[in-house]
Structure formats: structure tokens, C-alpha cells
């Protein structure tokens, strides 16, 4: 099946979430926010949950878990432990090629903060946190919070942690909230992370912005994506609802879909797919699940024809290995070994045992660790092998299909 190489006629770009591009002078201030959206409704907890459920709001940090289900779980944990919950807005954006949160925070920090207050009410929290890395994104969010500090019911604090891939994982956010390192740890039995004994609801900033829209009864905008390719720095775009992978690529560079050979869908711990298999898929869990992928944090890494997918994978896997929290032996040991094997294969000099050794190395990391970091790495490797089988065969004998082509 040949992939469509021309995008559908692009409708006028939606301007709900990312309406101010990177060149904007300064983010929307509170007055402008109120003029556009009005004040956040004083919805009771049940109404907030109902709105989240009605909008089928799901986490945009990568896991796509139902926001309403998460809020329910946190509220239940809060009841069981007799402790007020905490809500943390996750602005860490640890995914290396993701830019959507940074742009969102510069454009619409107040929507995020509305959502944060609403989520706090929904779970009966007594404090809210902004979690991120020192930098313009967190500063914009903190400045906006400062602007409205008098008017908001729940107090908002800031927790800034050193930049790290795993720092945005929910148990890591909870751990940083209690003064510990921003590293994942084992999850309590009910799945809800704790900070100093208090249940923590961790939501990506985009999810919170969407919650603020849902409670106001406003329609949900389309997906926020970040597209990157060799020579194309990560570029965030807001797409229309129901947009496809092709729409995402075309929104950044109209000629990109035609040049695409393979796409790493979901970012660094995502799934490689041949362009032909994914260009016409909708950017949603339902749209991508049939081809074995998930939108993740909305990152699309494009390998144009002529780019070696294995070489790109080797870079990705090495980064992920270096990003291990270094707490769990199988991850800390297994990922560097996996990276070694992928690098060897990518350079056309696989050691004896070739793919079998690689498969064993994948099996030694999959599922073996307190968090899903090694699982994502395994997924990237396995999908690379499946996406470009001809090139794999070539690499096993020391040559590269893409290099020959370019």
C-alpha cells in the first residue's frame, strides 16, 4: 500500500492551546486569559470529574491514562489514608524531542493553572505544586501562578529539579515533592504515588489545560505534537481533532510526508513504524494501537529515506541507557549492554550471535525495573528490527541499505 504523500487541505489552524508561537513577546497575562476564557467555573468535585469523563480526557504526558480514573484513584487513596492529596502539574517535559509543553506554558499558563486548581478541588487536595526544571517554561508557569496567587483557593508551590529524562515520572515527581531525588521508586499497592504519606495526583500540564477547557464546556482541541527530523529542530504544532500522522508532518513541512522513510512514533521510548504503515493513522491511542504504537507525548521523530534507522536507534538507546535512574540493577546494567549491541549492529559489525544476542539483551531488560523506562527502550529496539527488516539483514552482513540509497 503506498502512503498518501499529499496532505488533506489544511483547515485554519486551531488557536486554543498553542495560539502564540515561540516568537510572541510575552505570554498571555491573566487579564487577557480572563477575557478569552472567562473565569474558571466554581465547579464542585463531582462536576470536575464528570467533565473529565465526558471529554474522555486522558493523560498527555505519555501514558494516556484516563484523567478521571486517576483522580478517582487519588481521591480514594486520600480517603483511605485520611490524608489530603497533593496535585502536581508536571512541566518537566523530560522527553528530549518534545516541545509542546514549553510552548503551551509560554502561550497559556493560566489555562494550566485553572486546570490545576480544578484538579485540586476534584481530589480534595490541600496544596498544589508546579514540578519542572529550572528554565523559561517553569518560570513562565511560576510567574503566572504568582500573578493570581491572591485569587486562587489552593496554595501553589514550586519544585525545581535538575533536568533528567526520568524526572517527570509520577513516582519521581512525588519523591521530589517530599524533598527527595526526582527518581522513580516502587509504587504502593493501589498505584497512587505518595509524598510524605500524602497521595499525589501527577498530571501533565497539557492535560490540566484540557481539563480547564472541559470544565468550561469548551470543545477539546486536536492533538499537540512535536515533529523533528534531521535538520529540523523539534517543532510543536496544534492540530485539528482527528488529525493523522501525515497531517502532523505536513503542518511542519509540507514536503516531509513524501520524504519520510520511517517514523519513531511517541518519541525516544516509542515505536518505529514504516511511513507507509502510519502516515494515515489518527494521532490517538485508538488510531495507533492497531499498528502497535501509541502517541506517547506526541513526539514524531522522522527518519527520511536515506537515513539509517538503526543509527538513529543506536543514538536513542544510548541516550536512554545514560538516562537510567541507576537504581535497579537490570536497567542500569542491561540498557548499556543493549546500547552496545545496537551500536555494533548499526555500524555493521555485530558480534557473534547477531540478532539472537540482541533479543536476549532485550529480554533481560523488559519489565525488569521499578518503572517502565527499560520497557520503553526495549520497545524502541524491537520495533526498529520490525520496521526495517531489509536494512537489518544488510547490517548483519556489514552494509546499510539507506546509506547506499542516499
Amino acid at each position, binding site marked *: 500500500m503506498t502512503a498518501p504523500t499529499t496532505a488533506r487541505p489544511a483547515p485554519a489552524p486551531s488557536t486554543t492551546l498553542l495560539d502564540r508561537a515561540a516568537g510572541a513577546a510575552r505570554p498571555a497575562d491573566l487579564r487577557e486569559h480572563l477575557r478569552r476564557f472567562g473565569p474558571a467555573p466554581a465547579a464542585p468535585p463531582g462536576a470536575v470529574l464528570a467533565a473529565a469523563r465526558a471529554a474522555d480526557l486522558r493523560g498527555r504526558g505519555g501514558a494516556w491514562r484516563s484523567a478521571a480514573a486517576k483522580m478517582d484513584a487519588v481521591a480514594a487513596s486520600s480517603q483511605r489514608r485520611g490524608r489530603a492529596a497533593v496535585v502536581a502539574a508536571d512541566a518537566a517535559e523530560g522527553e528530549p524531542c518534545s516541545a509542546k509543553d514549553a510552548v503551551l506554558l509560554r502561550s497559556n499558563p493560566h489555562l494550566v493553572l485553572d486546570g490545576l486548581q480544578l484538579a485540586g478541588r476534584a481530589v480534595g487536595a490541600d496544596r498544589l505544586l508546579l514540578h519542572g526544571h529550572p528554565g523559561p517554561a517553569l518560570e513562565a508557569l511560576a510567574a503566572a501562578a504568582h500573578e493570581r496567587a491572591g485569587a486562587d483557593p489552593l496554595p501553589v508551590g514550586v519544585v525545581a529539579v535538575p533536568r533528567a529524562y526520568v524526572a517527570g515520572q509520577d513516582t519521581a515527581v512525588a519523591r521530589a515533592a517530599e524533598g527527595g531525588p526526582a527518581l522513580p*521508586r516502587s509504587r504502593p*499497592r493501589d498505584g497512587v504515588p505518595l509524598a510524605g504519606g500524602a497521595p499525589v495526583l501527577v498530571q501533565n500540564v497539557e492535560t490540566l489545560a484540557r481539563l480547564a477547557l472541559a470544565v468550561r464546556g469548551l470543545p477539546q482541541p486536536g492533538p499537540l505534537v512535536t515533529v523533528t527530523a534531521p535538520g529540523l529542530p523539534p517543532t510543536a504544532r496544534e492540530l485539528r481533532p482527528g488529525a493523522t500522522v501525515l497531517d502532523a508532518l505536513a503542518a511542519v513541512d509540507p514536503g516531509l510526508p513524501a520524504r519520510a522513510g520511517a517514523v519513531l512514533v511517541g518519541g525516544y521510548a516509542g515505536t518505529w513504524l514504516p511511513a507507509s504503515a502510519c502516515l494515515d493513522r489518527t494521532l490517538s491511542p485508538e488510531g495507533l494501537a492497531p499498528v502497535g504504537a501509541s502517541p506517547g507525548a506526541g513526539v514524531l521523530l522522522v527518519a527520511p529515506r536515506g537515513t539509517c534507522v538503526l543509527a538513529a536507534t543506536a543514538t536513542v538507546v544510548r541516550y536512554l541507557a545514560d538516562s537510567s535512574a541507576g537504581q535497579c540493577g537490570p536497567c542500569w546494567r*542491561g540498557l548499556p549492554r543493549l546500547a552496545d549491541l545496537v551500536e555494533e549492529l548499526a555500524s555493521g559489525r555485530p558480534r557473534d550471535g547477531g540478532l539472537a544476542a540482541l533479543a536476549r539483551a532485550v529480554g533481560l531488560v523488559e519489565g525488569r525495573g521499578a518503572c517502565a523506562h527499560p520497557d520503553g527502550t526495549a520497545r524502541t529496539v524491537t520495533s526498529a528490527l520490525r520496521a526495517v527488516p531489509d536494512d537489518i539483514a544488510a547490517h548483519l552482513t556489514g552494509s546499510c541499505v539507506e546509506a547506499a540509497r542516499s
Partner: protein
Amino acid sequence: MSGGGPGGRGAGGGPSAGARLHVDWTACEGRGVCSELLPHLLEVDPWGYPVPAPERDGAPQRWSREAGLAVPPEDVPDARQAVRQCPRLALHLDAAAARRPGRGTGGRG
């Protein structure tokens, strides 16, 4: 502090019920006591960390993060001992039902 760690909860159900073994990977140091006590259930990877032994038909088994590893009823007493003797208290045993419903894969949503 949250933790999957010390619990001392024995497997529920009668002597004929199986159980599920969970490991806290942040505590495990690959000391290998568990694989000695449960040789049919656990082997050791190149770095000393426990790995489920392959199924009877040779198929590889996975140690599920949410549901743990199935322990057949006849191995439950040894599994209990492994929990008690783990030098890092990294193991614990649950009744045979799955640990918690509907967990996502890593909670960055």
C-alpha cells in the same frame, strides 16, 4: 515513604492456593538467595539479578510489575522463606489474585 517492600503478608487462601511473588527492583542487589530457595521458579541473569525460569515448554516467562510472578502451591512455603531471607527485604508475597487493577505503564500521563 512509599514502597513495595516489607509486608510480611503471607499468601491468602488455604494450603492449596498459589501466590504471587513481587520484587522491589530498587532494593534488589542480586544476592541470589531467592534463586537458591526457588530453583525451579527463578534463575539468575549475567549480573546476579533474579529472572523467571523458562516455562516447562521452554517459553520465556516475564516477571510482571503489576501482577508479580506466579508461585505454584507446592512452592509457597519456600517462597515465604525467600521473602524472609532476602538480605535486602526486596521480595513480598501476595495472594493469588492480581495485585491492583488497571495500572498504566509508567504513569507519566
